[in-house]
């Protein structure tokens, strides 16, 4: 009898717990203590600087030891200009995605972070209500930034017509180009006109293959982020996800790039390069050595490309030129 009563009490306690969990799950509250509701832009006492929490991705093997110096210098300028201080929250780039997911899902308060389609996905965070709607705040509080870009550029940051992030200044126009080993290019006798088509690039790779090039590092093939440069396809949710805006068409439209004829033709070239050995057989697992490369396709050709790539190739002279129109 005594055992039965204990079991009954345990069952009742268990049911009560389950009911409580169910109620918690039905809650409409976003959870978390500090919700990023945008109301904390100014403290009540405006003489006290507001602390801006800024999560940054650090591209290094470890957090730089002198980051505090950078923070101090930032604050020296920012305090004077907008009566605010910046608290940097550095996270290594390999961990940034996971950490920001946790911060957003926890509803933890923060003011700034890096977001893009390829890291800390912008659209996903908007869906999770992790970012504040700043569509009306931008023209009012950041008129110079608002005026800096055309509406066509701001539209890239719109999700269902609203803006949740401010665009940072980077390379916006994507131009397809090539980086070639200068010595091999000059020996081949080819001209820049020959590279307007992929047949010309293939001919150059064949020349490298048959004339003493290090066969493990001739080329890497296409830059996977180069959809916009090579095809005029602006990806919506990352280069590997079906669904791009074809800006090369007369009327931009959303298409599935994997069903597009020009994309499939380009893939055939890649397969051909792989079969002929221009792309090494262990490309998926081996590390490609840029310093020993001969022919690279680039999706961000720019005037300074030659100097940069010569440096990347450890002083081996490079020649870089565009091979197609620019897209934005």
């Amino acid at each position, binding site marked *: 009898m005594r055992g039965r009563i204990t079991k009954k009490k345990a069952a009742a306690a268990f049911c009560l717990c389950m009911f409580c969990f169910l109620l918690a799950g039905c809650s409409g509250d976003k959870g978390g203590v500090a919700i990023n509701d945008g109301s904390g832009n100014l403290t009540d006492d405006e003489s006290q600087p507001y602390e801006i929490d800024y999560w940054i991705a650090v591209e290094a093997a470890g957090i730089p030891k002198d980051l505090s110096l950078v923070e101090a210098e930032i604050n020296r300028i920012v305090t004077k200009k907008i009566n605010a201080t910046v608290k940097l929250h550095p996270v290594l780039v390999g*961990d940034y995605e996971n950490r920001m997911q946790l911060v957003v899902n926890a509803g933890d308060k923060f003011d700034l972070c890096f977001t893009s389609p390829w890291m800390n996905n912008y659209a996903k965070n908007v869906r999770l209500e992790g970012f504040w709607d700043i569509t009306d705040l931008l023209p009012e509080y950041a008129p110079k930034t608002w005026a800096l870009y055309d509406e066509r550029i701001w539209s890239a940051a719109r999700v269902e017509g609203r803006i949740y992030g401010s665009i940072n200044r980077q390379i916006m126009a994507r131009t397809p180009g090539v980086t070639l080993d200068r010595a091999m290019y000059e020996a081949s006798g080819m001209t820049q006109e020959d590279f307007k088509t992929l047949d010309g690039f293939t001919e150059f790779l064949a020349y490298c293959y048959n004339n003493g090039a290090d066969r493990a590092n001739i080329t890497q093939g296409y830059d996977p982020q180069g959809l916009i440069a090579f095809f005029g396809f602006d990806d919506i949710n990352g280069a590997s996800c079906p669904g791009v805006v074809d800006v090369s068409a007369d009327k931009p439209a959303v298409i599935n790039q994997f069903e597009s004829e020009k994309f499939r033709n380009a893939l055939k070239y890649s397969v051909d390069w792989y079969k002929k050995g221009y792309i090494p057989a262990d490309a998926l697992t081996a590390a490609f050595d840029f310093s020993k490369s001969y022919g690279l396709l680039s999706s961000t050709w720019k005037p300074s490309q030659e100097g940069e790539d010569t440096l990347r190739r450890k002083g081996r002279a490079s020649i870089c030129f565009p091979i197609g129109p620019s897209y934005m």
Partner: protein
Amino acid sequence: MMMHKRKPTLSSIVIYAALIAFVLFCILPFALVLSSSFSDEEALKEYGIGFFPREFSLEAYRYAFQYPDDILNAYGVTVFVTVVGTVLNLLLTVLIAYPLSKQDFRWRRPMSFYLFFTMLFNGGLVPTYLLLKNYLHLYDTIWVLILPLLIVPGNVFIMRVFFQGVPRSLYESAVIDGAGEWTMLFRIGIPLSKAGIATVTFFIILLYWNDTFTGLLFLEDPKLTPLQLLLNQLVNYVQYVQQNAVVSGGMISAADLPDKSLMFAMCVIATGPMLFVFSFFQKYFVRGLTAGALKE
């Protein structure tokens, strides 16, 4: 009287062969890791891993120790966290397990259930994050590496079994001599449960030494980075550069970075100290492993 030397039977040969094979299965992978950590990266890619390096190279260790201050700092943090965490964890484990082992403790069953329940359910990652950051304010402090792991219910139950193995008559005679509960615990219970304490201590040391996850989520200050997290970050960085060399547009060529040999070197650096610790605890470990199955 002469002792006759027994001839090995077929069954004993089979058993010994199986045990030797098992030992080799355990030791040989580590030998491969050790050898590969001293191999040249290109030789590893071309010839694969082997028991002897094709081309000897210290490049992986050179890369890992390029900032020796970071490694030394990480070792210091890990040793501090492990020592302090082990002492506190063990103390609490013993203090919880001892009353649970007493048959006359009134709340034995509810407390055991309460502990057991936490082994099955927890709040999840987000509530844990909020609790540690916003309520307990442990975020970015060294105590976040110690306090959340202070009680491991499994260890409590192992210790409970060991305490139950101490004859009740010893406690009763101690009571007659005027001993209190603290005296019985520290003068009778603990000395007679050394095997259990050593086992649990080893588990706790491993727990703190290998913990990467806590630091990954709750630390920003590089001076507080523990060893496993530092090594994990190094490997992640190399892999990030290799996967995103084009996107990052950096000047670093992925081929310059040791990848596979670095991972093996990380294994050796991280597990090396534990080999020495294990050899110290070995004689207690075997007895402790079967503790959970024994009941008085």
